[in-house]
């Protein structure tokens, strides 16, 4: 990555007169870039202004204005606030926008997602295929004029529920009616599925090298039902012997239409849905969404609630990393023992979540302006017991059990995941980025909540191999314990909610990008409100999904068994990857 030669003040409109204008809509920030100048401006943003990390790319379908907008969020890995820039194009097919993958390769999958769900065609994209849905799917579902089979109304609450709520199952009411998208005179028996030709076409072709032995490449499909892919993830891999030659991740097997449902929900109703993104860390997901909406609502969070939030988010990080270590053991063939030990500690942490929120996994604990309820009696003592006595000992125990184990070290050391430069280019965030040596953690780089009050380090590791990724997780567990130890000591008394709890929150029009450091990386929510009770656009920027963009880059040249381990250390969660 080119280091910024000048630290120019950020006035894109002055730098590119005519091509860039400030976004003047009320509640909006950032710059609107002319479509034809996008590449030029984006190059300058990266090289001149130093925004080396393109974090999120997404689209918004402004149907009433007849525009399709593509939104980019860029950051500096040295820290600082967001730079938002947008491209607006008329909403007439084909909607075309130049791809920025040549500048930030990390945009590849996010652009594919925008193509899949919104139908924005990115010109010069290296591999523009559908990503979450399948080839042959009719239409682009996130467009505002697209309706699904069980469509009822544009916004919740639905009128059929009350006061005349005769129970019907959606599938009986609306099995194959007008909402289904079969073309006129469609004959299913004549239908030839487009299948996987495009996928296999995207894999590298076999070429006999001059003078070498004629061997053959084999295409292996791993998943979606495979014991080591952490869920319904699939990868199509071409191998030469055991070496990975080419690899394409295939996802969408758990695509639950989070964005589309989110646009129909009210702001509050989205909260429990965020639980189901990264289902290991519902507390972090709640946090991210709460931060995004609170930014838009411009409300202050109650002091005690801030501490509770941090405590819960850090506990969540600890249990996530513990399970990560256990599951990594499973992936490497170190069957079950570390995983079982990790799950014991996780159960104890989940007991706390269950006591405060009512559910082990789907906590739904945060509200705009605070949290649902105060810590029940005895819970703080339990947390203290865990963070002061039990968890430090158990982290050391895991350390003692695994870190020096010769077999483990021999397997892990030197298997490169990714280096710092590529990690930044590919928009990787979270532990994988820090294990490559980049000290980028949103809790420090762009502090949210009250993380600026705590004394903790951002651990990094120099090599970016599997071993470093494992060690970094251990470091992070210890740092989280440090934060927790300070937080449980400092937590003040007081209310846990600003204002009265209400189910209809008033959110002013505008956009907001709220991000938190979830245990897997940067989790961000891009919310656009038009002043109505439901968000106009609700987009999740999941860390797993963006981190997986570089999977091919990481795996090519390694052995197929290393692919499993690399996938393991990226620590994907399918609920968040596919949404």
């Amino acid at each position, binding site marked *: 990555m080119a280091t910024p030669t000048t630290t120019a003040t950020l006035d894109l409109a002055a730098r590119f007169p005519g091509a860039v204008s400030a976004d003047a809509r009320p509640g909006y920030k950032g710059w609107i870039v002319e479509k034809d100048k996008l590449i030029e401006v984006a190059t300058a943003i990266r090289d001149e202004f130093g925004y080396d990390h393109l974090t999120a790319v997404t689209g918004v379908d402004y149907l009433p204005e007849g525009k399709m907008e593509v939104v980019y969020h860029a950051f500096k890995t040295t820290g600082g606030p967001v730079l938002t820039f947008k491209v607006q194009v008329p909403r007439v097919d084909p909607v075309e926008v130049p791809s920025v993958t040549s500048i930030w390769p990390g945009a590849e999958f996010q652009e594919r997602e925008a193509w899949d769900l919104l139908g924005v065609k990115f010109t010069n994209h290296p591999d523009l295929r559908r990503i979450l849905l399948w080839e042959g799917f009719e239409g682009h579902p996130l467009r505002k004029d697209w309706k699904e089979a069980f469509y009822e109304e544009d916004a*919740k609450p639905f009128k059929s529920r*009350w006061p005349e709520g005769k129970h019907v199952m959606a599938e009986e009411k609306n099995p194959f009616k007008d909402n289904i998208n079969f073309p006129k005179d469609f004959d299913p028996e004549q239908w030839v599925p487009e299948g996987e030709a495009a996928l296999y076409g995207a894999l590298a072709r076999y070429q006999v090298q001059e003078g070498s032995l004629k061997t053959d490449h084999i295409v292996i499909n791993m998943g979606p039902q495979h014991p080591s892919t952490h869920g319904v993830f699939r990868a199509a891999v071409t191998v030469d012997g055991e070496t990975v030659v080419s690899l394409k991740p295939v996802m969408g097997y758990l695509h639950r239409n989070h964005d589309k449902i989110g646009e129909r929900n009210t702001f509050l109703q989205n*909260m429990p849905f965020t639980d189901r993104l990264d289902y290991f860390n519902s507390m972090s997901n709640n946090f991210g969404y709460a931060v995004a909406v609170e930014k838009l609502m411009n409300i202050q969070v109650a002091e005690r609630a801030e501490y509770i939030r941090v405590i819960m988010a850090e506990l969540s990080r600890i249990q996530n990393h513990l399970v990560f270590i256990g599951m990594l053991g499973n992936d490497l063939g170190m069957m079950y023992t570390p995983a079982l030990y990790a799950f014991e500690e996780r159960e104890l942490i989940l007991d706390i979540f269950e006591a405060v929120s009512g559910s082990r996994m789907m906590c739904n604990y945060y509200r705009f302006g605070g949290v649902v309820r105060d810590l029940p009696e005895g819970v703080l003592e*339990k947390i203290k017991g865990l963070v002061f006595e039990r968890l430090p000992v158990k982290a050391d125990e895991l350390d003692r059990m695994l870190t020096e*184990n010769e077999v483990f070290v021999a397997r892990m050391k030197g298997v490169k995941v990714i280096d710092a430069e590529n990690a930044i280019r590919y928009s990787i965030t979270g532990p994988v980025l820090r294990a490559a040596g980049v000290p980028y953690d949103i809790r420090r780089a762009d502090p949210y909540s009250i993380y600026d009050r705590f004394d903790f380090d951002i651990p990094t590791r120099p090599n970016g191999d599997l071993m470093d990724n494992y060690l970094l997780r251990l470091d992070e567990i210890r740092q989280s314990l440090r934060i927790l130890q300070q937080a449980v000591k400092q937590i003040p008394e007081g209310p846990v909610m600003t204002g009265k709890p209400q189910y209809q929150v008033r959110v002013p029009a505008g956009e907001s990008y709220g991000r938190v450091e979830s245990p897997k990386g940067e989790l961000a929510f891009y919310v656009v409100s038009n002043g109505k009770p439901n968000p106009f656009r609700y987009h999740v920027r999941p860390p797993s999904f963006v981190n997986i963009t570089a999977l091919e880059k990481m795996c090519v040249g390694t052995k197929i068994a290393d692919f499993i381990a690399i996938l393991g250390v990226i620590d994907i969660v399918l609920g968040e990857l596919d949404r």
Partner: protein
Amino acid sequence: MDGKGILKGLGVTAKRFWNTYWEDITWFFSGKKRYFNEDGVKARASKDTKGIFTVQYPEEKLIIPEEFRYVPFLVYDEADGKKEIRCTSCGICAKVCPPQCIWIVRTNDPVTGRPVPQPAEFYIDADICMNCGFCAEYCPFDAIKMDHDFEIASYNRNVFNLDKLMKPASYYESIRPLNATRENEARKAKEAAKAAKAEAA
């Protein structure tokens, strides 16, 4: 590669293996019951737990925290042998429900045709319900609450109607004593304030 690290790791597992027996022995000699006993379950869920961690469901069950939530139910008060449902069919739960799994039919007075504060029908589709607890959280009448009973697996799909959903207030008080007391007090205070206001006027 001299195997020291492996031995160190094996030491950890050996210690834990030893602990499983040692804990049972110490519990046995201290005269306490470790299994099939509430104290034992509590000890196994505490920060000092060592040894066998398993809670042998269904013979013994974990202590369910008060806030635990599963599928919702409707609370009714028992007065003179009659069931007085607290629900007034105001519809807030149906409006706030994120997956929209609550269906309510409001009762209309057969004579005047005006709505009566009581549900005629009430359905919760447990196959859609996401156990988020919003309905209980925002119900102004403390009428819908989250249940603790999780043993409701069945051979059919689960759509709960009014009959199935109704549970007595005494049951609610037994599963959530703290919440119930707090709510009862708040309700009483409210009624007292109302009475005082009526008196003053």
